[in-house]
Structures are given as C-alpha cells and as structure tokens.
C-alpha cells in the first residue's frame, strides 16, 4: 500500500510539473514535452526489458531508434516512380546480392570442413567478393537514383502507406537487426557487449547518413505524412473556430494544441499497450526465469536453461520496442534526420532514464522517461534563470555574465551526469525499485 | 606462548563461522604443520592469522605484541610473509621482478636476499629473466616461496605449497622448507599431504570443524594410532 501511495505521489508530482510548465510557459510547450516524455517512456521500457529483466547492457539504443525512423520514411513516403524507373530493379538486385553474400559467408563458415581459421578466411573471402559484386551492381543504380531531382527526392521513396503502420515496421526492423546483432554479440562479456552495440549502432547511423538512395542521407526526408490533421486545416474548420471563441483562445494556438493532444492520445494508447504487455511478460513464468538468469547465470544454465537463447529473445523484444518508439519519434517530428542520432541523446540519456526510474520496474521506467526528459528540456530555462540570478550583481554586459548566459544550455548535460551519479550512489535501485527484491 | 600464536579463533567469511576456537602457534626455527580433513578450516585459520578475514573472537600475537587488528600489509612490515595456495606468482612478470615485488616494503638493498633465494633455488637464478607464468608448477612454487622470503620474514606461512606438484618436487620443496627453518625462520604450513608434512614437522595441529582435535609434535602424531586411522589413511 505504502509503495502504491509513493508511486501515485511521484506520478502526481510529475503531472503537476507538466501542468506548471503549461501555466508558466505555455500549454504548447507543456504538451510538446509531454509527447516526447511518452516516447521516451516507451524507449525506456524497451531498454528496461533488456537491462532490468535480463541484465543485458545494450548501448546501441541509438541504432535501433534510427532504424525505427527509417521505417517511418520507407512506409509512409510516397514512392518515387522516376527513381524506380532508372534504378529500382538494379538497386533491388544489388540489395539481394548483398544479403545473399552475407548468407553465403555464414554458410561458408558453418559448412566448409576444416579449422576455425580456415573457415574464417573462407567466409571473409566470400563476404569480400560479395561486397565487390554488390558494389558493381549497385553503384550505377545508386548514381542514377540519386540524380533524380536531388533537391527534392533523389531516393527510391517508400510505400506511401499510412505512417502509423511504420510503428509496427519500425519494431520489426529493429527486431530483425537485433536478431542479427544478438546472434553474434550476445556471448560477449557485459562491458564488451556495451562497446560492441555502441559500435554497431554507429555503423547503422553511418549507413543511414551516407546511403542517399535509401533515405536521402544527411539531406533528410522532409514532410512525412501525419497520422493526425494539420494545423492549417484545423484552423479552417468551424468547430475549432467556435471552440477558440468560446475558450477565448488564439485559433492558431488552439489548433496546435489539438494536434499535440491527438499525438498524445495515440502515444498514450501505445504506451499503455507496451506497458501492459511488459508487465504481463515480467510476471509470467518467462519473466521469472529471465530474472533468475539475470541474478545467477551459472546456476540457471546448470539447471538446463538455454541462457543464450533467452538472452536473444529478450534482446530482440527490447530492441523492437525501441524501434517502435523510434518510428513514433520520426512520425512526431515529421522529418527524418540521420545526423540527429547522437549517442549522448539517444543511448546514454535513455540509460539515465532507466537507472533513475528504477531498473527492472516498468512503472519506474515510465517515470524515469518522463522525469529525465522533463529536466533535459527544462534544465535549460532553469539553468538560465539560476545563472541570471547568480550574476545579477554583475553589470548587464559583464563578459563573464554574458558568457555564462550564452552557454547556460550546456548545464543540462552536467545536470544529467550529477543526477545519474547521485541516484547510483544513494538510491541505486532508482525512484521506483524493482518489486520482490 | 609461541613466537606467533593465534588463540581461541572464531570467525569466517561473513556467513557462519568456520573457525570454532582453534589455536595455532609456531616458534622461530620450527616447522609447524596444520592438517585435517577437507573443510576443517585449515586454510581459513592460516588466513585468520594473517588478517585476511575478520575475527569475531580470539587474538593473534606476534613476538608478544597483539596484532589482531592490524591489516595484512602492516603484518608484512612486522615480518610475516604469506604464500597463498593459488595465483601465488605474478605470471606476467619475470622471476626477478617477482622477487623484487616481494621486497617491495624494504627500503634497504635487497640484492643479498635475492642472491640467498637464488642459492636456495638455483633454477630460479637460471630463469631470472623469464616470465613466471612460463615456468613449471614446481618452479612456480619456488618463485612463490622466494617472493615471500624477500622481506626477510620471521614467520613464513605456506598454504598447501605442494598442491598439484609431483612427489619428487614435493620432497625437494620440503627439504628447502627445513633448510629455511634452520635459518631461524618460523614456518607455518597447511598441507594435504599430511603424512609427509608431519614427518618434517616440529609441531602438528589436526583441525576438525574449526577446532583442534590433536596437537603434538609431528613424530608423536604420526605414531598415534588414532590419528593414523582417522587422518592418515591407516
């Protein structure tokens, strides 16, 4: 009971903070924060499934989120027929060649008789010739595709389906990638797994940045379709105008609030589903087994549990949730910007959320996602206010004061670090600790 | 009261007690051997004397000075030296460097001591520039003992020094142990090879469940039919 009360209190405080921002700054700001809080919470749930349930340190969150973003583009953007005409089939052939060479390399490693070293070299030779062949097929196609109206498209486009489908696709993309990554990397020691996943996520982002034919690379994909109405259209409708008049609101502001609320509604539904499923999984025999493996891997494997297979399951599931959240994020932004995927923001910040919220507790993850995102955004105005207060004694244009004010935004990084260290030291189980421990 | 004396020792590694009031002691120039069945707390008792676990009760006295509360490093400076059973050499360092590290607490010139070690274990002199990890099991034990001798200790403690070495190597090692004891060093040794160890022992302790079952000279223990039947395999 008391823990319940405590949790209700914590979430109430969180809600009150958001409301306070709505009152002090504006409803729009508060809702913008809320929407990203919701997405962060889902991402955090995904990491929690891996870390909290199974003790896997996945430092590749950024890569899976980026794959979700890619899914948003590939599902929702209308196809570019000209690009398909000039290089579509050849690009597909190239992609198939690439995939085949990977499969063949794996087969070579598994099938060829002989020592590990020999098989390794054979696999490497197969992979290398596959790459050369793929480049030979792909390169002209890429050049042709990227030449199609490079300022606007220059890529193959997507399927032109409603963008909401991409959320599922994003999960699937990430799950598929996680399966491959997990297959090769999960046997590694915990800190090596972290470094390997961090490296792989960098490779994924590099790929997205440089393969323009796929999703325009650093030129970004603008104007993704939305699952909710556009502000401009809302402003033209009668009910919005009437509502604005009744509430004494600016129509433009109201339309923007309605759009954000619609997003929030969608996100809350997804969050609720993911949370419910995560809780079900955690409480199921499967979840208990996962935690047993986490707490004592050796004992669990001695009892005949297939630890590697279980780890792969949990790694794929968690990554799928991260991919889902990644697709939602790109949907909300309406733009896919590969260059924006930074490990600090997309991997380490999510980790702060998990640790601060409480590893192994789904409710904690949601709270962590909310609280950390809130302070990530609000640390800037708060830091600025603090600095202005502290330096109010100095002259208006004192060099130090100006410098501090100019760089106030960066205090949020340091704040996150301090919060993380404080929680680790004084409350290592987080705001809402794992139950039954 | 012996030169090194642990009395009424109670304690363990955080959980239940392993030691239940055993007493162990050794005098300068003597070889004392602790034997007993598996899990009797032999190694634990030795580690307790060196301060590697927290004593709940009991005291350790060295040269009439109570050292029960001193950390292991300070016991090293007081002249105690300990050779653990496993991982008792710096495998990536040369034999010479191992000995040098043994002398780490010394500020004076330790070359003469190193030469003494080399004359005690001539093979180490030949292999002084080789990494200790590349030596055979018996040679590693020599490095381990040599490292412990570098502080010029008054007490040398050996935890199962003959574990995993051939009988020939064991005999040779025991010969060296006697030689070391003759220089006036007190030697306390935990041994699995009870019979052979008691043969060179001035004092023997038979521990069972963390308590002294028999305490006598090595020869007396070997002659005791009870001890022979229960602990020495007839």
């Amino acid at each position, binding site marked *: 009971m008391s823990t319940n009360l405590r949790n209700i209190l914590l979430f109430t405080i969180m809600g009150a903070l958001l409301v306070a921002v709505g009152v002090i700054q504006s409803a729009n700001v508060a809702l913008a924060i809320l929407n990203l809080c919701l997405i962060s919470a889902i991402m955090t749930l995904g990491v929690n499934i891996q870390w909290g349930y199974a003790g896997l340190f996945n430092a590749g969150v950024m890569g899976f989120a980026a794959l979700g973003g890619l899914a948003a583009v590939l599902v929702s953007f209308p196809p570019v027929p000209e690009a398909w005409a000039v290089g579509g089939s050849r690009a597909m052939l190239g992609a198939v060649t690439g995939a085949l060479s990977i499969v063949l390399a794996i087969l070579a490693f598994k099938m060829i008789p002989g020592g590990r070293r020999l098989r390794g070299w054979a696999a490497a030779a197969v992979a290398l010739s596959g790459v050369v062949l793929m480049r030979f097929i792909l390169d002209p196609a890429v050049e042709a595709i990227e030449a199609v109206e490079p300022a606007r498209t220059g890529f193959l486009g997507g399927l032109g389906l409603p963008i909401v489908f991409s959320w599922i696709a994003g999960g699937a993309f990430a799950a598929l990638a996680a399966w491959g990554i997990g297959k090769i990397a999960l046997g590694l020691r915990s*800190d090596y797994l972290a470094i390997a996943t961090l490296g792989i996520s*960098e490779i994924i982002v590099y790929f997205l940045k440089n393969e323009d034919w796929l999703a325009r690379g650093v030129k970004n994909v603008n104007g993704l379709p939305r699952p909710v109405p556009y502000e401009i259209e809302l402003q033209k409708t009668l009910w919005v105008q009437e509502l604005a008049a009744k509430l004494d609101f600016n129509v433009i502001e109201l339309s923007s609030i309605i759009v954000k609320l619609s997003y929030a509604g969608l996100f809350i539904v997804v969050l609720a589903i993911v949370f419910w499923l995560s809780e079900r999984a955690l409480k199921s025999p499967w979840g208990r087994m996962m935690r047993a493996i986490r707490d004592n891997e050796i004992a669990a494997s001695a009892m005949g549990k297939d630890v590697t297979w279980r780890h792969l399951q949990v790694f794929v599931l968690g990554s799928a949730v991260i991919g889902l959240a990644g697709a939602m994020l790109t949907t909300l932004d309406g733009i896919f910007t590969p260059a924006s995927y930074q490990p600090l923001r997309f991997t*380490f910040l999510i980790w*702060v959320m998990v640790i601060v919220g409480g590893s192994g507790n789904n409710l904690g993850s949601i709270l962590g996602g909310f609280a950390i995102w809130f302070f990530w955004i609000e640390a800037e105005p708060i830091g600025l206010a603090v600095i202005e207060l502290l330096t109010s004694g100095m002259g208006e244009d004192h060099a130090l004061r100006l410098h501090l004010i100019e760089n106030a935004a960066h205090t949020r990084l*340091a704040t996150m670090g301090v919060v993380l260290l404080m929680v680790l030291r004084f409350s290592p189980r987080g705001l809402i600790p794992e139950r039954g421990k | 009261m012996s030169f090194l004396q642990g009395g009424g020792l109670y304690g363990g590694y955080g959980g239940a007690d392993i030691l239940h009031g055993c007493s162990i002691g050794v005098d300068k120039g003597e070889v004392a051997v602790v034997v007993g069945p598996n899990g009797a707390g032999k190694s634990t008792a030795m580690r307790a004397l060196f301060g590697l676990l927290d004593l709940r009760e009991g005291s350790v006295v060295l040269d009439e000075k109570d050292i029960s509360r001193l950390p292991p490093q300070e016991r*090293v400076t007081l002249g105690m030296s300990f050779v653990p059973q496993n*991982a008792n050499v710096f495998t990536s360092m040369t034999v010479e460097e191992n000995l040098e590290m043994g002398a*780490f607490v010394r500020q004076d010139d330790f070359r003469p001591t190193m030469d003494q070690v080399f004359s005690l274990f001539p093979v180490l002199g030949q292999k002084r520039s080789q990494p200790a990890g590349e030596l055979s099991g018996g040679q590693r034990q020599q490095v381990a003992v040599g490292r412990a001798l570098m502080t010029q200790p008054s007490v040398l403690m050996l935890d199962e020094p003959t574990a995993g070495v051939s009988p020939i190597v064991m005999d040779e090692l025991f010969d060296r142990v006697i030689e070391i004891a003759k220089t006036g060093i007190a030697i306390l040794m935990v041994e699995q090879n009870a019979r052979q160890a008691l043969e060179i022992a001035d004092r023997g302790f038979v521990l069972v469940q963390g308590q002294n079952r028999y305490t006598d000279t090595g020869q007396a223990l070997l002659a005791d039919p009870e001890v022979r039947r229960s602990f020495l395999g007839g």
Partner: protein
Amino acid sequence: MTDILNALVLLANFVLVPGLTYGSQLALGALGVTMIYAVLRFSNFGHGETMSFGAMITILTTWWLQEKGITFGVLPTALLALPVGIIATVVMCLLFDRVVYRYYRREKANPVTYLIVSVGILFILSGLVRFIIGPQDRVFADGERFIMKARAFKQMTGLDQGLAIKTTQGVTVVTAIVIVALIFWFLNRTRTGKSMRAYSDNEDLALLSGINPAKVVAITWVITGALAAIAGTLYGLDKGYKPFTYLGLVLPIFASAIVGGVGNPLGAIAGGFVVAFSELLLTFAYKRVIAYLTPGDWIPEGLVQLLSTDYKLAVSFVILVIVLLVKPTGIFSGKTL
C-alpha cells in the same frame, strides 16, 4: 623509376604521414583506456571527454599566453601550455576518483556499474567543457605551419608529387614517441611502475607483498589524466578542437585498445596504428597510384577505392566489432600491464 617514386610519395603524403599522426593520437588515447582497464578493471566511457577537458584547459592557457605575447617560436604555443592542461586533468581525475570511483571500489562493484558511473562522468565533463569553452570549433595551432611544404619537396626532388608535413603532425609523432618511451621506462624500470604491473597482474598477491592499492590507483589516474590531456591536445592541434568530436573518438580509441588486447600497453599502441592505417588504406583512392605503377598512359576509370571516404570513421567501428567477435582478447592477448 620516377613513376615508382611518385607513387610512393603519393602514398606517403596521403596515407603514411596522416596515418602516423592519427595512429599516434589513437595510441595515446588507447594507452589511457588500457591503463584504467588494467588497474581498475573497467571500460572508461568518459575517456574521450577527459581528453576534451585536457585540451580545453590547454587552449585556455594558450590564449592567455598569446595575450601576454608569449609564443614558442616555430612550434605551437600549446606545447608551452600543455603542462597546465596535464596538471588540471590529473587533478580532475583524482578528484573524480576520490568523490565517485573510490566508493565503488570499496563496494567491489561489478564492471557494468563502473561503466554506468563513467557514463555519468561523461555527461558531467561534456557539460562542463561546453559550458566553459562553448561548443564551437577552435583552431589554436600557431607557429610555423609546415615542416615541409609540398612545393618545396617537389623542387628539392624534381618529382611530380609533393610531400607535405605539417608542424602539428611532426609534433604529434615526436611527442607520442617520447611519451610512450617514458611510459615503458616507468612501467618496466621503476619500482612504482613495477608495482603497478604487479597490482594489475594479481591484486591479492600485490596486497600480500605490501603494495598499497590506494597509491597504485592514484598513480594510474595521474598517468591516465596526463595521457588524456596530451592526446586531446595533440588531436585538437592537428584537426581543430571541437568538444563534440571527442565523444566520437571514444569508439576508435576502444577499437585500438581492444584490437591490441585491452590492458596491454604495447597492444594499445599497435592497435592505434592498425585502426588508423585501416581507415586510411580502405578509403584511399588508388587511382593515381595505379596510374603511376602501370606502364603507358593508362589511367583506371573509377577512383579504385574500397570504401567511400564517408565511411572512414565507420571502419574503426567495423574493426572493433570484428575483433570483439573473432578474438576478444586482441592481438597481444593482454589483460595486465
């Protein structure tokens, strides 16, 4: 004959010189990571930011010196300022160890906990650095820009291809050699250095030999801090200082340390050069080299490049992943100093 010389100079100019420079920077960074791993036994994700911090202090000191009109002749003023950067970084490292890491050592925390803690420090340092110096690009190299200019080289040798060596490149390589020699002398010849190796090899036995762990840990941080400040400054001198790039450096540095065998100083250095040269060799366009080496006037059609230059940094990540998967212990299979 001239063609072969031209081809060699081309390779030297675009692969050898930049590779030696970048390799030295990576090697110094990887040495720091490896020291921490060998003694404190965790992967320090904050090392890139530590380098950034050291470079920042050096830059601030350089500016102050320049304001006073003090320069270092043909050499960059930053070399004069470097000792201040080193001291500040060492103090910072010791402070973090005292306030943060020591607690976890006493708790005997597992490596992942340390890793998360180092992420916290990464956040703090990156915030601090951006707060103090701002996120902009800073070029702080001064003095003579070139040791050898391409034009001068052409005139001297009469070849078509020029070889340019920047002062910062020369400074980087020379400093790296001096520092590495010092580190190896320290580890293999001094009592304190040997005690560090002993501690890294066998902590319990080091304790039994009377080696003071607190002192070993402190010295490790001193060396790591100094290495980080030097590596960070050299990298900034050569490529321009921007706080953002230092987080990205962590992975190539880890790659270097792991390729050589993490915990092994020799491996860290070898790894740095393996990574640097792999990046350059895989993304170098061999077109002109082949043109020189083949008889007649034939010139290959494409660039003859294995990977596009866009993927330069990705090469190190790929190496990292491959090594982790194929031989996680690295070339030199080290875990100890």
